[in-house]
């Protein structure tokens, strides 16, 4: 059983960054259809082995790992496609629906599987799933996603993964989303990990009552789903996250102290509701701050933080419960959650209305014909002439430009001032390939336009042109003196 757990969870960590890059580089529909088709094959293999009775421990672990890997490969893309499917005004509701559905699937999956196993036998679980997954592949045939690569070749996978990490390093709003989710995930996982023991030993619940207790969180989540449009209209994203975590901490204290089943059911419903309000709020901000071109990679890093925190939290709270008592573990989780809620208050999620990640196409690539898309590295230089008294304002505007270019994949960026002529400043940045340079306008967003306007205010509407130069590398074999 522990080996199966490893086979399911480890691919999620190992493949996260690859899956995120794949979601941005390849056709997203083709990726999910391929993954689903692969899952059908693995499920049929499970079904055949189970029907013929020829399954072994090794075959079950291998097939489970294969299914875990396929699920991990599709995880970022399922989330990354959502903003492209709905209007911006519906995004928050779409994210809440998808989160509530996922909580429902987590609760209903084992229960439904249990019913099929009890009535028809274990083999039927696989046959039913094979049919469901095949229906999924067919249903996706009707989906027509739109993508805009600007007619450029797809990014290389390894470079795309590197750029994903570089983006996280230079995007403060994304970092805040990730930091906000960690304390919530680290603590809310305790409830999932400890609920079976709580039900059995503290509440003395039988299997049917355990089902009810597990379902209470789902009921709370659905109730919160209905309330989310009203809550969002009245509170800021930060207020929703903080209040949800404090309310969940209170619910955990109740669970630590009560042996009364109705009270426990109410506390679990509150925990389910507050998990949905907090997680869907953070996820909506995540989906809003990420421009479409990097969304798969950004989501993958978020999922890595989320799943990592879930795993670490489950281990820590399990150990606390084992060494002390269930009550202590629940009380400690509640305290940790309240501290976490307060600790992340200074980090502000950006209000959704302030963010516009629509591509702005802020610069036009210079008309150059003697260069191929794969040529590189390429250095681009612009010569600025500013009033030396405005140097501080210029440097501040250029710092925003530097951060934006770094997010968009520029390798390095620097400014240098002519020692003889104050105010004559050379800006230089390097891109890995010419294709990468051509991608920069597609990666600049409407939110970056403010930097552009600041520069126009300083130097007038005609910004200096960018001059592309091939970066020369040292030759591996030096020419002999006679050849020089």
């Amino acid at each position, binding site marked *: 059983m522990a080996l199966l757990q490893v086979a399911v969870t480890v691919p999620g960590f190992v493949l996260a960054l690859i899956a995120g890059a794949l979601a941005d580089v390849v056709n997203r529909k083709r990726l999910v259809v391929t993954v689903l088709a692969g899952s059908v094959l693995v499920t049929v293999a499970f079904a055949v082995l189970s029907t013929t009775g020829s399954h072994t421990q090794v075959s079950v672990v291998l097939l489970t790992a294969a299914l875990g890997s396929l699920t991990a490969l599709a995880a970022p893309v399922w989330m990354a496609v959502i903003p492209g499917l709905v209007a911006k005004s519906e995004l928050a509701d779409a994210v809440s629906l998808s989160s509530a559905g996922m909580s429902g699937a987590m609760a209903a999956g084992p229960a439904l*599987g249990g019913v099929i196993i009890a009535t028809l036998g274990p083999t039927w679980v696989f046959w039913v799933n094979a049919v469901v997954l095949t229906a999924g592949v067919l249903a996706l045939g009707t989906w027509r996603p739109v993508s805009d690569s600007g007619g450029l070749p797809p990014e290389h996978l390894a470079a795309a993964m590197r750029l994903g990490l570089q983006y996280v390093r230079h995007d403060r709003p994304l970092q805040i989303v990730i930091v906000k989710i960690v304390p919530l995930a680290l603590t809310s996982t305790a409830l999932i990990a400890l609920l079976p023991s709580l039900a059995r030993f503290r509440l003395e619940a039988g299997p049917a009552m355990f089902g009810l207790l597990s379902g209470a969180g789902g009921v709370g989540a659905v109730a919160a789903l209905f309330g989310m*449009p009203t809550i969002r209209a009245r509170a800021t994203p930060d207020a929703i996250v903080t209040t949800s975590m404090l309310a969940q901490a209170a619910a955990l204290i109740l669970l630590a102290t009560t042996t009364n089943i109705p009270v426990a059911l109410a506390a679990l419903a509150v925990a389910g509701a507050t998990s949905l309000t907090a997680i869907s709020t953070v996820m909506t901000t995540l989906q809003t701050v990420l421009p479409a071109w990097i969304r798969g990679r950004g989501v993958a890093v978020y999922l890595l933080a989320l799943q990592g925190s879930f795993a670490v939290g489950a281990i820590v709270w399990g150990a606390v419960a084992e060494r002390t008592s269930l009550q202590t573990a629940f009380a400690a989780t509640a305290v940790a959650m309240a501290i976490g809620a307060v600790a992340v208050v200074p980090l502000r999620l950006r209000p959704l209305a302030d963010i516009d990640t629509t591509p702005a196409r802020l610069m036009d690539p210079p008309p150059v014909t003697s260069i191929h898309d794969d040529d590189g590295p390429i250095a681009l230089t612009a010569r600025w002439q500013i009033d030396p008294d405005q140097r501080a304002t210029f440097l501040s505007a250029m710092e925003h430009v530097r951060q934006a270019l770094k997010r968009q994949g520029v390798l390095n960026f620097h400014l240098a001032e002519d020692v003889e002529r104050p105010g004559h400043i050379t800006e230089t940045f390097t891109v890995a390939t010419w294709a990468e340079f051509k991608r920069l306008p597609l990666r600049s967003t409407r939110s970056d336009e403010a930097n552009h306007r600041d520069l126009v205010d300083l130097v007038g509407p005609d910004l200096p042109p960018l001059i592309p130069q091939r970066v020369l590398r040292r030759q591996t074999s030096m020419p002999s003196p006679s050849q020089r």
Partner: protein
Amino acid sequence: MTHTGAWGPLRNRAFAVVVSVNLASALAVFMNGLGGA
């Protein structure tokens, strides 16, 4: 900003299809896990 209520996005066919398939596949994976165990 206008919104169409908690279920509003489901009126969009592409969203309804993609989310349903995602949930169905997640359900299948959770059930498969149980069958495997």
